[in-house]
């Protein structure tokens, strides 16, 4: 699936849930299933700024594709990381860098999340794209 197909799938999934508490239930579930970052990567370097909870993100390049793992001390945050990873992980740095992430707004996450959390989500997205750009530069050189 392309990044956009994955986004559309998520939007469809979320649209089936009417209550926000149900959507959260789903996010929390995703959080619990998050492919956890290996302990040695939970370093300050991998900490993302701008979240009320702590968020680590780690990247690996395999066969020209980027794979993300992450963790947080807050479960909902983990769920959000999980959402981001499910959309972006396994794509080329180029696709990731060029991607237009519209599912956050479409789901209504941005307006429903608390501001610090939604800022955190945006920081996360920014960080993932930065990694992608960095790898692109590396691969080109």
């Amino acid at each position, binding site marked *: 699936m392309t990044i956009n197909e994955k986004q559309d799938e998520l939007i469809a999934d979320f649209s089936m849930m009417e209550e926000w508490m149900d959507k959260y239930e789903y996010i929390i579930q995703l959080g619990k299933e998050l492919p956890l970052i290996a302990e040695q990567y939970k370093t300050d370097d991998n900490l993302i700024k701008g979240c009320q*909870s702590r968020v680590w993100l780690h990247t690996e390049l395999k066969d020209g594709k980027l794979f993300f793992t992450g963790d947080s001390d807050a479960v909902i*945050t983990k769920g959000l990381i999980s959402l981001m990873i499910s959309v972006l992980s396994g794509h080329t740095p180029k696709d990731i860098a060029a991607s237009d992430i519209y599912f956050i707004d479409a789901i209504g996450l941005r307006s429903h999340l608390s501001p610090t959390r939604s800022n955190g989500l945006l920081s996360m997205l920014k960080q993932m794209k930065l990694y992608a750009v960095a790898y692109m530069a590396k691969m080109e050189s």
Partner: protein
Amino acid sequence: MDNVSTLAAPALDVARIRKDFPLLQQATVYGLPLVYFDNGATTQKPQVVLDTLEQYYTGYNSNVHRGVHHLSQKATDAYEEARKTAAAYINAQYSHEVIFTKGTTDSINLVASSFGRTFLQAGDVVLISAMEHHSNIVPWQMICEEKGAELKVIPINERGELLMDEFSRLLNERVKIVAVTYVSNTMGTVNPVKDIITQAHARNIPVLLDAAQAIQHITIDVQDLQPDFLAFSGHKIYGPTGIGVLYGKEAWLNKMPPYQGGGDMIKTVTFAKTIYNELPYKFEAGTPDVSGAIGLAAALNYLQQVGLEKIQQYEEQLIEYALQALQQVPGIRFIGQAAHRSGAISFLVDDIHPYDLGELLDKQGIAVRTGHHCTEPLMDLFKIPGTVRASLSFYNTFEEVDKLVAAVNRAAAMLR
């Protein structure tokens, strides 16, 4: 469980009180009626405060002092009347002991800077407590750094109470001022400030009380309590944002240099020499927040009318009820369990992140605050990332407490 508080008749007719607060009447969150338990952060405003602002802006908005015209006179009268109201509210001896500021933070910065610049020297000590809000830590850190003075901290026990023995031990001739909070914004602890002041005064050390979380819950009589300085914020006592009070004893204020320079705080200005005005103007540079002061006075008058004693009684019933009801939540842990408490209840459930819990309470229409509540050193002490804090006001109901408990249970079940 037989709950005394629920059996006793509530000290207030809260349904009637709530009609005075338009936001409580009309605000909904995600389609649910709002349950507002973030009163420690800021309080809602009674209609009379909004009416007072409106009357000011549509009737006699004008710059105060030195005005020759009618509106200016009306505005000046109202502004100075507001000062008298604030002074009377805390039973200050003179109304010129009340300085209008931006809020508690501004008030404390004024004292830290002006007192500190005059009375602090290298080697001196400023004594605060382990439960202070950043606003009663950082200003002192800044002036201590500038002056080479030292910041010392009164420790607390695991229930969140000051260790008064340690306080007595820390009091020595190096201490130049004691700055403590009356009520902890995170734990609700009511500190034994009378004892603190008595001990400090026995050594001629002045005391600043951070009353940001006390003034709206506890009757304060500065002539009885005898603090040298007392700071509070209008927005936390049902008044407008952007206004606050610094009370200072005349004798201290007269000894302190002005904090800011500008209009109104001077008597005469030449480029060579400037003569400062008398109290309270010396400390009120620039055009004051006239509407804010008048709005604050309206809030204070409103509280007097409802009855401070009744408010206090009812809030005590409510907090006791809330503590007992929350205790039933499986896995709950209170941060702060002082014998004497007021306002805020901080808790955690199992190892659920407070931020997650707060988010799911919000989605159920319940406004609480999560995080360190600007008391990071306290969080470090308890080795926690933060708490969920429900902070109560006299317009909250027992039913709202029940909703809170149900919502905490539901959220915890999802997050566990």
